[in-house]
């Protein structure tokens, strides 16, 4: 009998608040170490936390988006453990009374099947700082800029049965939080991190012993790590061994995982309600006011793309699931006036370039306005699709707008039939041998022989001749010679 994989996810999403969850320090990514750490972030004695209302709003937005219960009373607790990048030696988090109760999201798999994944709860907590182990000659440096950044931790039920489902679920959460604008979704900066709980069993049996692989920060790593761990567990059991409950770390560079600590070595976190923070009571009116201002969610947006732009369901999903992608597409489509062509360029050339440069759409070197400028020149016949690639390259590498690149590089398509006729005449005049071959060839073979003449004409026009016109005129002239 086949093995069944059981997967549950714990997802940490950094909330896009301006300041930290309990202090006024900035949360901007990438500042010099410890320049965004106040006395509170350093856990100086006597400092006290004050909750950031925006973090609550964002968590409630998430709760509403997954159709969850919002707790009318939520409580912060202290999770105690010593680590140098955890300044208070406890993390302020929620345990017994999280802000977001049970909810669910729907995922769609490649074959079009849909599945509901239940969410156990989501809670607010603070992020830790970072330990820097390089450049300190046998010591470690501590950077507390990240300490106190608000996180929402989303805990799923063990409802996923394959790495594909797990990745689809992770992508769906990414799409929801970015659409809500509560998280920037920058995985490479650690804005979203995934812990994956994995076990295997024979269908119908009790759940197997699970392991947790922590801190995966890309969909690809997540997929690879799950496959690796499932394989490890199955091999282990089939060889007569037993899976032990442990926390594992996956290295995306070496594609290997190792055990970090077993259950026996796990900390006793000694949770208890934080006496510095009173329980937060949220009233119905407050929740309703947030519900009214909820931005468009990915599922609704994809539906709209199908009806409003006539996109296929596949295209609507590709362009509509990510909020930044959707914004890019809609801006470019509006500017260019050609929805279908815009969609094709985004999903084709642009996506391929972004992928190979490992960039998200938000950091695309090519803005939606630039792309739209190029698309509209294709649409109005100024440039050919082939020329457009040159324009695209120019904009990608050096910036600028399509019109000036077309102008500077002389890429304008020649659609003047007189000029094209002259070029055709000249090529024919200089190609006696090829014209003879054409004339003597069997009629069925003639279309294939056109290639030579087209090539010569395009060469003569430096690629600028309108290919459709070239074809038409050439055919007419050659036929006249028969």
């Amino acid at each position, binding site marked *: 009998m086949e093995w069944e994989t059981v997967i549950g996810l714990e997802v940490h999403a950094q909330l896009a608040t301006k300041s930290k969850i309990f202090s006024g320090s900035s949360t901007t990514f990438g500042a010099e170490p410890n320049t965004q750490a106040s006395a509170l972030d350093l856990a100086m*004695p006597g400092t006290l936390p004050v909750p950031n209302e925006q973090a609550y709003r964002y968590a409630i937005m998430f709760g509403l988006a997954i159709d969850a219960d919002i707790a009318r009373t939520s409580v912060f607790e202290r999770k105690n453990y010593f680590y140098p990048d955890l300044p208070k030696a406890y993390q302020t988090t929620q345990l017994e009374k999280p802000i977001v109760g049970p909810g669910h999201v729907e995922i769609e798999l490649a074959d079009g099947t849909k599945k509901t994944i239940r969410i156990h709860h989501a809670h607010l907590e603070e992020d830790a700082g970072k330990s820097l182990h390089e450049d300190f000659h046998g010591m470690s440096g501590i950077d507390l800029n990240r300490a106190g950044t608000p996180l929402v931790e989303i805990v799923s039920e063990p409802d996923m049965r394959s790495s594909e489902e797990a990745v689809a679920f992770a992508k769906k959460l990414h799409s929801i939080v970015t659409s809500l604008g509560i998280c920037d979704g920058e995985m490479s900066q650690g804005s979203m991190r995934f812990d994956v709980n994995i076990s295997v069993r024979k269908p119908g049996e009790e759940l197997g012993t699970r392991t947790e692989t922590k801190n995966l920060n890309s969909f690809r790593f997540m997929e690879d790590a799950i496959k690796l761990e499932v394989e490890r567990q199955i091999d282990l059991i089939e060889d007569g061994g037993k899976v032990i409950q442990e926390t594992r770390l996956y290295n995306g560079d070496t594609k290997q995982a190792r055990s970090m600590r077993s259950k026996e070595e796990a900390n006793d976190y000694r949770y208890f309600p934080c006496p510095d923070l009173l329980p937060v009571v949220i009233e119905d009116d407050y929740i309703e006011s947030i519900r009214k201002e909820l931005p468009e969610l990915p599922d609704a947006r994809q539906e709209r793309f199908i009806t409003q732009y006539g996109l296929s369901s596949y295209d609507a999903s590709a362009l509509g699931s990510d909020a930044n992608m959707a914004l890019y597409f809609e801006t470019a489509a509006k500017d260019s006036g050609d929805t279908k062509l815009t969609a094709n360029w985004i999903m084709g050339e642009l996506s391929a370039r972004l992928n190979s440069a490992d960039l998200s759409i938000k950091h695309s070197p090519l803005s939606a306005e630039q792309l739209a400028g190029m698309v509209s020149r294709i649409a109005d016949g100024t440039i050919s699709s082939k020329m457009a690639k040159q324009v695209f390259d120019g904009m990608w590498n050096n910036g600028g707008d399509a019109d000036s690149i077309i102008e500077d590089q002389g890429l304008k398509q020649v659609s003047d039939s007189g000029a094209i006729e002259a070029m055709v005449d000249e090529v024919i005049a200089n190609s006696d041998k090829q014209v003879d071959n054409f004339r003597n060839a069997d009629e069925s073979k003639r279309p294939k022989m056109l290639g030579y003449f087209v090539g010569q004409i395009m060469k003569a026009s430096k690629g600028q001749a309108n290919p459709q016109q070239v074809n038409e005129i050439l055919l007419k002239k050659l036929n006249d010679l028969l």
Partner: protein
Amino acid sequence: MNDSIMHNKTIAEIIAGLEAGEFTSVEITQHYLKRIKQLDRKYNSYITVNETSALAQAEAADQRRAKGNAPAFCGVPIAHKDIFCTNGIRTSCGSKMLDNFVPPYDATVVENFANAGAVVLGKTNMDEFAMGSSNETSFYGPVKNPWNINTVPGGSSGGSAAAIAAHLAPGATATDTGGSIRQPAALCGITGLKPTYGRVSRWGMIAFASSLDQGGPMARTAEDCALMLNVMASFDPKDSTSIDREVPDYTTNLNQSLNGLKIGIPREYFEEGLNPGTEQAVKNALAELEKQGATLVSISLPHTKLAVPAYYVIAPAEASANLSRFDGVRYGHRCEDPKDLRDMYMRTRAEGFGEEVKRRILVGAYCLSAGYYDAYYRKAQQVRRLIKQDFVDAFEKVDVIMGPTSPSPAFEFGSKGDDPVAMYLEDIYTIATNLAGLPGMSAPCGFVDNKPVGLQIIGNYFDESRMLNVAHQFQLATDWHKRSPEGLELEEAK
């Protein structure tokens, strides 16, 4: 003016003297600094004396007063318990762990006094991290009780209490987690008030047990405590447990008659364990109040016996987490040449904390551990609710509750050192009010063997004005608070 009179003045008298131009803030500050220098060798009530900054503050205060419109408190010298963070001045909390710690910020309480123009003479000694009832746990050595230097001043605010009793400050800030203002006030024969939880900001006040800690004033009289509380109390957006409620002028009701006042006398506060001399002094005080028109009502606070055990679960539990930040990573003590992270943590904390602090961290961590949480921490929280309900029920019937502050007067050094539980019972009458979040105060009401006895007044939530009124009326009719220990004169004055 005669120097020897200056240090006998209450804060109210100092304010009057400054207003009348009888003396300047610089003069009285210099006078106190001189006294501290000469006399505090005997009492050890200060950890740090701010000679330079105090004189600068006094000069500024005199200038401000000269310009007019100065706040009442402008130029009055006080001391801060070394648990309140002071910008640029070492704040040790009585611990080796923070012996080198200079905060880059002021506690809100410190800021409030600075805004009012107060002069800060220095930082007073205390039990390490406010854990103790005798001041014997301070890294800086014990404070001596000015009434008898062989006895303890009480704790944890023993430095503030002794400094006032020895006339080394007219008033001082203090904190009270289980009795740390009231018990040393009683043992040193001064007046001290622990306000309602949330009335005084905890920001910048180094946490012992966050849900119990509350700052408050200590001085020789109830009127002085009212003047200090006017400055100390404030709503502070930086403290999420601070309560947004208007701060009244606590001096307004001081002179109201006590006619018709209903005083609850809890039976449980007069049972075994109470020193007979203490009991008599308290009963005499109650008789005096009866004479002024108050009615004594016998009440019961049935869960009194559970207060000490519940407190010694909750307070250490919170402390175990609050004190975890002292890990040697960012500030404070760090052991020499740690060989790895674990070694650094273990030696730093083993060296930096004293015995009592370690005991409470261990107790607290144990109570919160998996498998023990329900039996200890959760149960203690349930008891806490019952204790609070006792008081809520009692205040349906009475205006204030009174009894002894402490079961007996000051004891000798070392006499309870081997028995932590005997020490914990020192706070048997004070702890319940912290668990309930109620305000409580202690005022001098007599002597046993020439050792002061304190009368405890417990008020309803935010009823500090009434408590101060009761204490003030009592002090108008008695002179216990006016008595001073011997040996307070400077060498040259003799």
